[in-house]
């Protein structure tokens, strides 16, 4: 489903006289359909850098990320044309960061309904589904028509994951989706991720939280000294 081999990332900082910073080196792993691969490790070790390299927010320095797309084509995300990456991001790649980035001045319900309005969905159907989903993650009805910038951290993160799932991804990258959340929010998010797994989505997640790893992870890799080591 997703095969990463020999992936590495270095940053050359011209504004610091060409200083080279190591992101990570020679990372290889395979992620499978309907499974969650968890990446753990200390802060600053390169876990988020790895996710961003797969999503191509960072351009990898070396190695390959072979992704099997829905139409059965093998694409190297590390080297593919920008145009193809944009297309894949719109149709099958999802990325959930620790922070919610949405268009300002649009209500939560409209944003979510807009995201559900792909393919042959009707505007009314999309709106109903958005309402159902918001209700399911227990976001109070009074907030549906508010801007997400007014939400609390936990509510924002719940919406963040809903938005990623609503786009019906084939591969979903999660960057600490349960960080700094209360127990209730955390449980809701774990439930959502489990649901996504059942739908056959391939998941790669960066986690610090032990409960989340226990509940979600099928395989676990630990990042040590910028390399990835499998944990049984």
């Amino acid at each position, binding site marked *: 489903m997703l095969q990463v081999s020999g992936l590495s990332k270095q*940053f*050359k900082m011209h504004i610091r006289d060409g200083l080279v910073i190591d992101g990570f080196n020679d990372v290889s792993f395979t992620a499978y359909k309907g499974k969650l691969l968890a990446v753990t490790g200390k802060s600053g070790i390169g876990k988020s850098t790895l996710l961003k390299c797969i999503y191509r927010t960072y*351009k990898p320095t070396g190695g390959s990320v072979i992704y099997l797309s829905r139409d059965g084509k093998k694409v190297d995300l590390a080297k593919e044309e920008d145009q193809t990456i*944009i297309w894949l991001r719109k149709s099958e790649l999802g990325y959930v960061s620790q922070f919610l980035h949405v268009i300002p*001045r649009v209500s939560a319900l409209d944003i979510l309904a807009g995201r559900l309005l792909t393919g042959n969905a009707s505007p009314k159907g999309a709106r109903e589904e958005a309402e159902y989903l918001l209700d399911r993650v227990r976001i109070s009805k009074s907030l549906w028509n508010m801007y997400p910038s007014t939400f609390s951290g936990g509510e924002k993160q719940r919406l963040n994951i809903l938005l990623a799932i609503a786009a019906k991804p084939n591969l979903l990258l999660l960057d600490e989706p349960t960080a700094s959340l209360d127990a209730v929010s955390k449980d809701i998010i774990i439930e959502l991720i489990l649901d996504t797994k059942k739908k056959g989505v391939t998941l790669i997640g960066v986690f610090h939280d032990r409960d989340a790893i226990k509940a979600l992870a099928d395989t676990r890799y630990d990042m040590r000294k910028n390399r990835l080591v499998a944990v049984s």
Partner: protein
Amino acid sequence: MDNIMPVLAVRNMSVRFGESCEYCIKGCAVEKGRCPYCHTIWALNKVSFNLYPGEILGIVGESGSGKSTLLKALYFDMEVSCGEAYLSEYREGRENIFEISSQQKRYIRNHKMGMVYQNPVMGLRMNFSNSANVAEKLIAAGIRNAGNMTQRAEYLLSHVEVPVSRIKEEPKNFSGGMQQRVQISKALANNPPVLLLDEVTTGLDLSVQARVLDLIKKIQLELGISMIVVSHDLSVIRMMSDRTLVMLGGRIVEEGLTDQILEDPIHEFTQTLVHSLL
């Protein structure tokens, strides 16, 4: 997903001011766009890029890097010194639009491309009413029926949230943000497949800026127009564009996905630019 045909393909486009010499014409290093021997200014130096269907392409760079020159040259406001551009909607992209007759260029300006200038004075006739401004474009495109023109002008102006009661007013009485919206409706009059936007929100206050950007985004989603957005405001580029070009001294120094340009800039200038962001 393979082989998406670009709506607009630009190859080796150059705009120079001056005679040029052997040294600079070869494309040797021209510091800050100026040849050290003959002092020719290369406002654009062999610029090549593609604009794809339905995409918003951002262009960033410091003042004087050639961003506006690029748009003006594409809209034929300025002559190019050399280079080629192919528009898929014009003769199926087989003819270099820089080499066609001025009549044909006029046709492209009226049917195939829209331009929104930084300064509304450039794009609007300030002494004509708003509806007349839109009608001017429609007349240029060959529509002569007054009823149809009024209807279309009303539709377009209300689309950019200019109240119907005010469409007979002259844009000179409008605020900067409103003038910009009238300009957008004028640029969209003939449903062009390509829209060029030159620093459209510069000089507008934050809430008006937000409204104009919302509007542009909405239009893009509804009509699927391909756009080139020039701005020196990185937040505008982050919100609007899928891909971004970075310009310096008349050249494109970096090109990539917008989040990649902003989070993992490779070129020295892009790094300086991104790290200067407040």
